[in-house]
């Protein structure tokens, strides 16, 4: 094939999704495995999002080794596996609203603000309507965010490739890590500590010399720490320990769950949509802008979206309408649109720069690294006239995102509204089972008991980090990026003839480095509310 243009790549990406290996034939029409996996991922995501104590991250951690066992290590596996993860990511955001509205229990941390108006609506007999508003707002925000991603990521990647050389790329990685350290969580110092620990962990047992550095002469450390063990330990096991402890403190007995019966009109009318649209639009814009910056979570987007919506609402609300926090549908819309619009935009840094902006992106990178044949980053978006398979995969991923949104618009809402029963599963039984399942999944992928020990150890570290209010996200992103940071720096140092000031020679690189230092020190001046 010769002379491929941008439209050809888009079309090839769409074809890779719809005309890839087929799962089955329905009424004479072949249904591709990727399509099926996106649907499965979305369903699983909604289920785990609707189950308090679980979430998209746990589902991705457990699913990844199973998916790799099923699909193997070849390029045909990329779209089904990554499509599944994207489905989980989108589904869990929507699902988190279910227990928040029905039982005042946010299924995911970013659904907390949804409880403020969702639960009062449910108590006043408007549960189904509240769920419909949450679904409409969430999927609208997500769709807007995906459109921004699809439009922006290729351009950003092309600019990065055109203007940034090795020293600038090294400086950009340093800037990203500093930014993540400074903005995630409530303290820049703690963010930097989390980042430093992640870098230290990834450099153990690696390096270019014959002797594996920092291995203390032990076999266990000389092969390095498996990335999945570190990521799963810190993110999943640490969270499970923290949740279990909360249950231990509560002594579990929170009484019987009371559910109000639905009363009155539960349909979502055009008039309702017109009322909430300004709030959805504002929050989608806020969430997308926040999501495009690496490391800033959807919780902050939800908080800012809610606060902005509240100010706007105060100016125009009818005298008899409920206030924000007392069952205003606009409050649900403002929150759900904001937290859902983060997810698509969060993939802008990972696809255009290769820098993961959130935990879902970390798992997409893990999947790409495990399977091979796709390295998220600026080099993907090379519109060469000869076939660039990575670019086809990138457009295939965009197609899976659109597909997931379409499924979410059509069947997601109905499915979501049927899941209220999941909140009744006792978490004290669920969490230890999930812990064992996570360790078994890790073993299946790594086939090494040391990976289980590492994950358990990192789980304990993740628990202590949470108790010291240190966000684990900078640790994970530093762990994932640490190797690339060192490789790029090595190459840049050699390419500049061993110049020790290679990071300050070009104006762009110098600006990035100064920006990194400035971000950390400026963030010292004013503590922020916890965001992660």
């Amino acid at each position, binding site marked *: 094939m010769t002379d491929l243009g941008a439209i050809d790549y888009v079309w090839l990406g769409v074809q890779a999704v719809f005309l890839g290996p087929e799962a089955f034939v329905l009424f004479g029409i072949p249904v591709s495995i990727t399509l099926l996996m996106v649907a499965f991922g979305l369903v699983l995501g909604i289920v785990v999002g609707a189950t308090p104590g679980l979430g998209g991250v746990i589902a991705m951690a457990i699913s990844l080794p199973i998916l790799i066992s099923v699909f193997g290590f070849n390029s045909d596996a990329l779209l089904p596996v990554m499509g599944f993860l994207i489905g989980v990511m989108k589904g869990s955001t929507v699902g988190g609203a279910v227990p928040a509205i029905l039982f005042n229990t946010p299924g995911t941390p970013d659904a907390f603000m949804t409880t403020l108006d969702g639960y009062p609506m449910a108590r006043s007999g408007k549960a189904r309507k509240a769920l419909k508003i949450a679904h409409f707002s969430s999927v609208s925000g997500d769709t807007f965010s995906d459109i921004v991603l699809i439009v922006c990521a290729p351009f950003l990647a092309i600019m990065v490739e055109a203007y940034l050389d090795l020293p600038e790329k090294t400086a950009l990685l340093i800037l990203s890590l500093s930014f993540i350290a400074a903005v995630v969580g409530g303290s820049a110092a703690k963010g930097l500590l989390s980042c430093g620990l992640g*870098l230290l962990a990834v450099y153990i047992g690696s390096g270019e010399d014959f002797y594996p550095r920092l291995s203390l002469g032990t076999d266990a450390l000389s092969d390095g720490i498996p990335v999945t063990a570190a990521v799963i330990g810190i993110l999943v096991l640490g969270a499970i320990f923290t949740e279990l402890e909360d249950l231990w403190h509560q002594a579990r007995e929170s009484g019987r769950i009371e559910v109000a019966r639905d009363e009155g009109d539960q349909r979502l009318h055009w008039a309702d949509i017109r009322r909430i649209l300004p709030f959805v639009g504002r929050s989608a814009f806020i969430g997308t802008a926040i999501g495009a910056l690496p490391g800033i979570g959807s919780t902050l987007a939800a908080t800012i979206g809610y606060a902005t919506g509240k100010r706007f609402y105060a100016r125009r609300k009818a005298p008899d309408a409920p206030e924000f926090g007392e069952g205003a549908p606009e409050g649900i819309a403002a929150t759900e649109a904001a937290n859902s619009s983060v997810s698509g935009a969060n993939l802008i840094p990972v696809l255009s720069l290769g820098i993961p902006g959130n935990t879902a992106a970390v798992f997409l990178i893990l999947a790409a690294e495990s399977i091979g044949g796709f390295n998220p980053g600026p080099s993907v978006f090379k519109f060469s006239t000869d076939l660039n398979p990575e670019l086809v995969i990138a457009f295939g991923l965009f197609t899976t995102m659109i597909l997931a949104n379409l499924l979410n618009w059509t069947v997601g809402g109905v499915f979501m509204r049927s899941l209220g029963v999941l909140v009744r599963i006792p978490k004290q039984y669920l969490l230890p089972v999930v812990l064992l399942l996570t360790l078994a999944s890790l073993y299946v992928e790594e086939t090494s008991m040391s990976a289980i020990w590492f994950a358990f150890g990192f789980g304990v570290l993740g628990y202590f980090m949470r108790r010291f209010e240190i966000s684990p996200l900078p640790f994970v992103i530093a762990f994932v990026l640490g190797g690339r940071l060192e490789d790029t720096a090595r190459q840049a140092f050699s390419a500049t003839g061993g110049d*020790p000031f290679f990071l300050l020679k070009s104006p762009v690189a110098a600006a990035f480095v100064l920006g990194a230092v400035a971000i950390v020190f400026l963030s010292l001046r004013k503590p922020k509310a916890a965001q992660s």
Partner: protein
Amino acid sequence: MRKLSATVALGLGCIAFGLLIALIWVPFDTDTGLVERSRGRYIVGDSLAPTLAAVFILLSGLMLLVERRDGDARPSRNNLIFIGVMIACGVLSILVMRYSGPLVALLSGADEYRLLRDTAPWKYIGFVLGGVTMICGMIAFVEGRFSLRAFWIALAAVAGIILLYDVPFDDVLLPPNGDV
């Protein structure tokens, strides 16, 4: 005397840890320095990146001492009791998972476990005993009592995981059978 705040203690700990890494661990446990000369050219040595990580940790410690803060988060005594029990339960379960299969094989006079590790029922002994210990132990501690319900849930969960991983995939081994 004023009581040391948890944040200040954490900061001092980070400074000490950062110095330990930069001045002792990295120099004594890495073969190449920060920058090396190889074939007439200067290249980055293996020590540079971990030293940078140590600088991050050191810097975070200094920042913790001067940063304005809202609260003073620290693990309480109850936190330490909880995580202590979780660690004990986890370590015991993983040890049971790792060694119970080989031990049963040894005591029953069967073949060496390595030869049996992909054969039922041997391949399930460690995972079932270790898994049930882990789930039951954690549920019992959180609930403050041992219940038969917890045991059945643990058994059902372990059976479910076996059905998920072991039954459909010939090339997948449950812990600890892949590396005994």
